[in-house]
């Protein structure tokens, strides 16, 4: 092809081309790293919580009569909820995954005063917890009813059995191989807890916590005028049951109010609001930057066509076909873009190394840079197409008509 003369002609008029190449390079560096951040955020957002987000909702019952019988009320409520058509199961608990508020506890591998070796989110449940949260039990068993106790009947507060997530078990016993069932750890420095079951996954209430995958079910029911219920429904029944349950519970006992009605899906959305906004902002920036670069290329090409009107006419007179004129500007743009994307690739990798070190970003996937290169090449060719077409319409008579 005619790369040689095009390149040499460009080198005699570097300024504009260099600026555009630089703009392409910066766009590419930003594009690639923005993409890396977006990808990381969206991976984070798509992590499963372990529960059945789509068919789960929660509400809180707050009693306001000073001497009310909380135990009885909670049991009545649960009986009512579990008996409702469309409800799979329900449980009284303190929180649920991604609620952004909950209980966490430091854990020890040995009794006695010492540093905790791990920490975990705590979900207080009865034997219906496992089913209500739709957890995948990979080892051991669910709590038996006699393992579940009321906190008012439990002198040490912490019960002796727990169900933990796989991630928590691995963190607690990093050197252990085989089943974690039967292993013991300690709450604080004196309350042993025996693992009776391991679930594949159940996230903590806090999505930004590095230990988000570490949580446990604790078979303790809390006698309190403040009770949070988590309810799992058959698919498709959630929205109508949310309305129905709120009315039912409000009506069944006039000494309490129902608040905090919301689905697990909403809670999930809310907890990733910042990440979703970040993805939107970054996409906007990338699109904007790419558009500005595209417009810059259109501008440079238009200027370049206008400046070379005469020479285009001369080329036509000397035998250039219209496609040959278009090709000239396409090739010229391809060269500028190539300089830009190669420089941009180097810049992008440099920026990524800095970001990986400074913000613990995961390194770039191998395909991001080639894809960004292709995108910018295509944007460049598209941007230059209009001016190139206009150039090809210049009459060869220019050669004799303008002095």
């Amino acid at each position, binding site marked *: 092809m005619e790369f040689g003369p095009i390149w040499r002609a460009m080198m005699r008029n570097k300024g504009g081309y260099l600026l555009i190449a630089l703009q392409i390079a910066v766009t590419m560096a930003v594009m690639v790293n923005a993409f890396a951040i977006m990808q990381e955020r969206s991976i984070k957002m798509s992590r499963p919580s372990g529960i059945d987000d789509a068919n789960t909702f929660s509400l809180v019952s707050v009693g306001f009569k000073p001497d009310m019988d909380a135990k009885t009320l909670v049991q009545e409520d649960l009986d009512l909820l579990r008996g409702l058509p469309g409800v799979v199961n329900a449980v009284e608990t303190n929180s649920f995954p991604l609620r952004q508020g909950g209980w966490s506890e430091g854990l020890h591998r040995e009794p006695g005063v010492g540093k905790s070796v791990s920490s975990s989110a705590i979900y207080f449940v009865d034997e219906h917890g496992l089913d209500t949260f739709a957890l995948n039990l990979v080892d051991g068993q669910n709590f038996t009813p006699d393992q579940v106790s009321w906190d008012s009947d439990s002198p040490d507060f912490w019960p002796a059995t727990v169900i933990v997530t796989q991630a928590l078990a691995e963190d607690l016993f990093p050197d252990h191989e085989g089943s974690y069932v039967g292993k013991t750890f300690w709450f604080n420095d004196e309350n042993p807890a025996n693992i009776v079951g391991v679930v594949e996954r159940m996230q903590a209430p806090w999505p930004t916590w590095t230990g988000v995958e570490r949580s446990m079910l604790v078979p303790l029911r809390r006698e309190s005028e403040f009770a949070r219920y988590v309810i799992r429904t058959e698919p498709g029944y959630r929205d109508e049951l949310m309305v129905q349950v709120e009315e039912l519970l409000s009506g069944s006992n006039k000494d309490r109010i129902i608040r905090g009605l919301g689905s697990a899906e909403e809670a999930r959305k809310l907890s990733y609001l910042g990440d979703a906004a970040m993805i939107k902002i970054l996409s906007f920036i990338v699109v904007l930057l790419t558009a500005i670069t595209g417009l810059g290329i259109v501008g440079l090409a238009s200027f370049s066509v206008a400046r070379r009107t005469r020479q285009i006419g001369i080329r036509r*007179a*000397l035998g250039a076909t219209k496609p040959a004129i278009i090709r000239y500007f396409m090739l010229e743009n391809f060269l500028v873009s190539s300089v830009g994307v190669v420089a941009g690739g180097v810049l992008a990798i440099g920026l990524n190394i800095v970001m990986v070190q400074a913000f613990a970003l995961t390194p770039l996937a191998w395909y991001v840079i080639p894809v960004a290169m292709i995108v910018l090449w295509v944007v460049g060719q598209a941007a230059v197409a209009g001016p190139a077409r206009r150039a090809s319409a210049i009459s060869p008579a220019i*050669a004799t008509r303008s002095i």
Partner: protein
Amino acid sequence: MLNMKNVSKVYRTDTVETHALREFSLIVEEGEFVSVTGPSGSGKTTFLNIAGLLEDLTDGAYELDGRDISKLNDKERSRVRNEKIGFIFQSFNLIPELNIFDNVDVPLRYRGFNADERKRRIEQSIEMVGLGSRMQHLPAQLSGGQQQRVAIARALAGEPRFLLADEPTGNLDSQMADSVLDLLAEINAAGTTIIMVTHELGLADRARRNIFVRDGQVSDNAPELHLASMAAG
């Protein structure tokens, strides 16, 4: 070889219609050296542009090398310009950002010659116009006469049958003009058909045949030219 019959060319703008050529008829045979003279605005350049396929004609018939030009599409016209016609312009029309070598290379690339063939032709034609030592120079680094020689080299590198020149010496002093004309005469002697537009009667005289254009038509009586010839003779 060139046969124009009743060719007319009308330029239309919103307000005016200019009849640049009217019923223009001319036959040029292979190997001729024809000069075209006439007052400014008489249609000389228009004729040359149509002859060189740079512009369409409005009416009439034009055959070049036995081909009906009106039947050609843009791609075919480009090809005819590239292969059969060499152009020399008053303002040289070299491409300013290309050096001499690359300038002469332009039509050869459109022709599709391979690199060796192009190099051979470029060097040969630049040598022929006596600028072999300036191949890497930019046009702006050469004098007007030298630039016009490069333009001639560029026009001849593809070995066209036809050389069209519009006021080729218009921007040159008389000494340079003479040497350019010597070159053209040499080229014609080697077999290339030349049509040269000029308003300088002394130069027109060096052609073997003179055409006088007035009001867009070939004029039979060209008194000034006749007088000039007599004065020269």
